[in-house]
């Protein structure tokens, strides 16, 4: 079932098959949610934005001329909603990373990886917003540089540059984690 292309699912949904949307949603919900969550860092705000994104998708899906480019379109909506969110509200102090629950009984290796993850998440917040946006978008969406550039409304080279700077900072901050 998961092999059905986005394009086909969109056509089926447009034809009145609501179940097709469930598949589409299931396929893209986590990447979109994490893309939003990594930017706003507040669960409540992330959920609000996430809902707005999908309501907009549902409302506008019949206007999508190129269903094959659904992921890029979806992340464009998400990015626009995040931008709207920051326009309305200035960034707040970050919530503590609560997604990585502490487990006392984990092995030393797992504890090491966990600490690296925590450092990575913390480092992400130190990146410039546009660098973080480019990095998370690339990681969550799996889109090409051209598609990311299109979503971010800038050139391919600009995106490459943002990613390069982001990686430099992350590499520095994650020294010792590559062992």
């Amino acid at each position, binding site marked *: 079932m998961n092999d059905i292309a986005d394009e086909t699912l969109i056509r089926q*949904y447009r034809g009145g098959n609501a179940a097709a949307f469930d598949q589409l949603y299931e396929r893209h919900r986590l990447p979109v949610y*994490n893309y939003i969550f990594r930017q706003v860092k507040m669960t409540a705000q992330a959920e609000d934005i996430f809902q707005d994104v999908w309501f907009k998708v549902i409302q506008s899906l019949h206007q999508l001329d190129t269903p094959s480019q659904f992921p890029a379109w979806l992340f464009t909506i998400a990015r626009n909603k995040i931008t709207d969110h920051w326009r309305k509200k200035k960034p707040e102090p970050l919530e503590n990373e609560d997604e990585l629950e502490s487990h006392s009984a984990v092995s030393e290796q797992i504890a090491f990886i966990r600490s690296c993850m925590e450092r990575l998440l913390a480092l992400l917040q130190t990146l410039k917003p546009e660098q973080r946006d480019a990095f998370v978008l690339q990681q969550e969406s799996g889109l090409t540089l051209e598609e990311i550039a299109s979503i971010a409304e800038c050139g391919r080279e600009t995106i490459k540059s943002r990613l390069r700077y982001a990686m430099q900072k992350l590499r520095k901050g994650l020294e010792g984690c590559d062992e």
Partner: protein
Amino acid sequence: MNNPQDDKIAELYQKIPKARPSEILDARIRQEARRQPRQGRSLTPYRWFSVAALIVLSVGVVLRIIDEVPVEQSLQENLELMEMDAAPVIKEESKAVMRADGVTVQAEKMKKAAQPAAPLARMKVQQVPAPVESSTVASKPEFTGTSQAEYDMESLSDTLARKEAQFLPENYCGMEQLRGVTDKQLLQEVLDQLLSEKQLQQAECLKKLMNRGLSE
């Protein structure tokens, strides 16, 4: 991202447990998706085609109805238009007629003059019988550059005048066979017959004829 270190960072990022939206939120979004297809179905190309076909059909029907507007109405409109078109032509012709030798010739020329400018009017002119009796023709008012419509009206009134003249006592009420009949009984029988046939105009005329004793 060719740098192996970058790949490791990406790998590490992917290992971070994914944040998840709440189940309530998931349910709300799915519910919205189920509501939308019923509410706002998009106009697919097929639907667009249906709508376009319906519009074309409607326009066709309307045009058809417009085409079937009563003939009299369109004839009247055409006459009005032709009145404007034909007027100068007829005026010129009528000037030439004034130099010619009579009203009958003038009327004929008027008909000819109307032909190129007003084919429809020409038909109408042809339907009206040309004047026969010289006296009637002579009594017809002269055309001095009148329009085609006016000319038609003149021809019509001329015809009516001739019909009325048939029922004048001096014309034997249109019954030439009464000429020279003096037998009042016979005339009364004819009168009774006319009344029984409800030819009132002719009967009235015959009454007058009998009263005047014109049966020569």
